[in-house]
């Protein structure tokens, strides 16, 4: 009996191992992961300072500052939409919190709460305009992007007579709010910013949402094909609006980080950052056409961004070439992503 069982057993093991490996290769973030490992090894070799624990903390902070937004932006992209207003919405959110607190001399938490309500309303407005008009989200959010940029500047000048808000450092509640949104703490002698933890929490929630809940299926469905999703009973309108509001939620959160970390807000900031969020999501395996991608991938994309932008500094390369290196690294990571995924699909 042992003679008959023994031969098929290793065959089963091989089969099981390969299918797990294939399964792994089929994940959207696998290409980004390979790219991240390649970059990590590369910068470890060319930059002496890169491997220190304190450097790693800096890279993580930089990644988190992109990654928090990339989480919600990747969900939105999986749902088939873009949000070009995401970059300036961060600034709007910080400006609202700062100005309400300062001008009305409120506890800063009141400003934080008002800002949450207003920023979520902005996301709701983006979503509502999209579902009501049926115009591409690219156009809708391009419009709101410019409107917000103008409002940021217009209101700030009208109210403060300057282009930056006054510092709110000495106001009630500032230190608690700073502890929540911008605190540094020490882990094994290395300072880590709390945004890194929040980033991990957001990625975990988004991943759970995507892979383990019905809403996650809805997101993939509306991104794949909104009309067929509607035909099988997916609440397309509600899902899309919720995705835009997800972006505005993280914009609020990241805006609060900027406010409490840097104390005052420049009204012209944030323009152009929306592209970096989209880049993180795309590097992480989100398709520009929707229906495919992952939150973990976007996190790895943000990590690649953080490693690249700081790795160039650690390597002490000539700053004139900064953007070239950044672009080349991102392109390389995306190509690796593409190659790995094609291989995986061919092997199916």
């Amino acid at each position, binding site marked *: 009996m042992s003679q008959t069982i023994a031969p098929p057993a290793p065959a089963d093991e091989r089969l099981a191992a390969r299918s797990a490996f294939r399964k792994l290769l089929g994940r959207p973030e696998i290409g980004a992961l390979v790219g991240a490992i390649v970059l990590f090894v590369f910068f470890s070799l060319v930059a002496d300072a890169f491997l220190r624990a304190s450097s790693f903390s800096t890279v993580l*902070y930089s990644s988190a500052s992109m990654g928090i937004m990339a989480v919600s932006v990747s969900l939105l992209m999986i749902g088939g939409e873009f949000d070009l207003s995401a970059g300036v919405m961060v600034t709007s959110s910080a400006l609202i919190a700062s100005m309400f607190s300062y001008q009305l001399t409120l506890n800063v938490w009141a400003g934080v709460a008002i800002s949450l309500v207003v920023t979520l309303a902005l996301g709701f407005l983006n979503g509502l305009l999209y579902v009501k008009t049926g115009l591409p989200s690219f156009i809708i959010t391009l419009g709101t992007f410019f409107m917000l940029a103008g409002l940021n*500047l217009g209101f*700030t000048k009208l109210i403060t007579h300057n282009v930056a808000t006054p510092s709110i450092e000495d106001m009630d509640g500032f230190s608690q709010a700073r502890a929540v949104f911008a605190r540094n703490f020490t882990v094994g002698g290395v300072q880590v910013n709390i945004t890194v933890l929040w980033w991990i929490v957001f990625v975990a929630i988004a991943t759970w949402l995507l892979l383990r809940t019905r809403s996650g299926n809805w997101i993939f469905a509306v991104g794949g094909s909104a009309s067929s999703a509607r035909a099988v009973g997916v609440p397309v309108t509600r899902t899309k609006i919720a995705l835009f509001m997800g972006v505005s939620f993280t914009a609020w959160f990241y805006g609060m980080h900027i406010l409490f*970390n840097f104390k005052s807000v420049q009204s012209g900031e944030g323009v152009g950052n929306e592209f970096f969020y989209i880049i993180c999501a795309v590097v992480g395996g989100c398709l520009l056409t929707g229906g495919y991608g992952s939150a973990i991938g976007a996190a790895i994309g943000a990590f690649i961004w953080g490693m690249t932008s700081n790795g160039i500094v*650690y390597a002490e390369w000539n700053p004139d070439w*900064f953007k070239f290196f950044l672009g080349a690294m991102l392109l390389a990571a995306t190509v690796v992503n593409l190659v790995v995924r094609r291989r995986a699909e061919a092997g199916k």
Partner: protein
Amino acid sequence: MKRKVIATALAGLLALSACSSSGGKKADDQATKALGGGGPRIKIAMVTHSAPGDAFWDIVQKGAKSASAKDNVQFLYAADPDGGKQAQLVQTYIDQHVDGIIVTLAKPDALKDVVAKAVAAKIPVVTINSGAEDSAKFGAIAHFGQDESIAGQAAGEQLNKAGVKKAVCLIHEQGNVGLEARCAGAKKTFSGDLQNLFVQGANMPQVKSAVTAKLQADKGIDGILALNAQVALTASDAAKDAGSKAKVATFDMNKDLVTAIKDGRIQFAVDQQPYLQGYEAVDELWLYKNNGDVIGGGQPVLTGPAIVDKSNADTVAPYADRGTR
């Protein structure tokens, strides 16, 4: 110097009115009116290369507006960082037949033709901030600004005085000629080693991590020269986080920065006095219109560098507080 100019204007007007009228009282009245910003109401337009929401250009406008209020001038303002669009804006003001145009020559080639058009239309042009070397060539009557290289040299000397040996110069806008000139100027007089580091000015967390990364990569750095107040404050936070003792200095100011100088977090600021650039430009056009005066006699007039450090921060603080320094 300004008082002298006003006195000259006053004397000129007195002389003029004395020629045209016989009554002493009337002449006195007219002179008083001129001092208080009288004369016929004129329209002056300013077109800069500022990006929206730039703190520096906000101060320039404040200077221009207060001179306009005094001189009975209607002040118009427009800006675009793109050279071609800036030229189009100048053209729209030529079409409106304004009485004077103030323009920045950050991209001189893009603005050369349109400045010539304004001159041909008999609209006096004053340049501010950037373009000192092209101003007169293009037909502008005067230029008010800081020579970026000279300002950089001043910063280099201050860094020497602070005992800095190895510093980084933070360029927050890639390809900006003025910023490059500041770092190059500082390099000229600074006796230690100075390298440039590019940081993304529109994204403070990235500025912070880039500076932290640099300080971690090279522990020998004991000085940071920022070219903008907000970047300087962020760099100072980054130095603290990185456990670095690097001394931070900067160009240009704001309210928080003056407080930071008082606290000793920032060593000094090189102030090019943007308020003065706006104020003098409007005043110059008014003087030219009403008295034919040219401040600086055709030579560029420097508005900086004025060094603000612990010794004079208290004096400057109230002005920075209201956003005019």
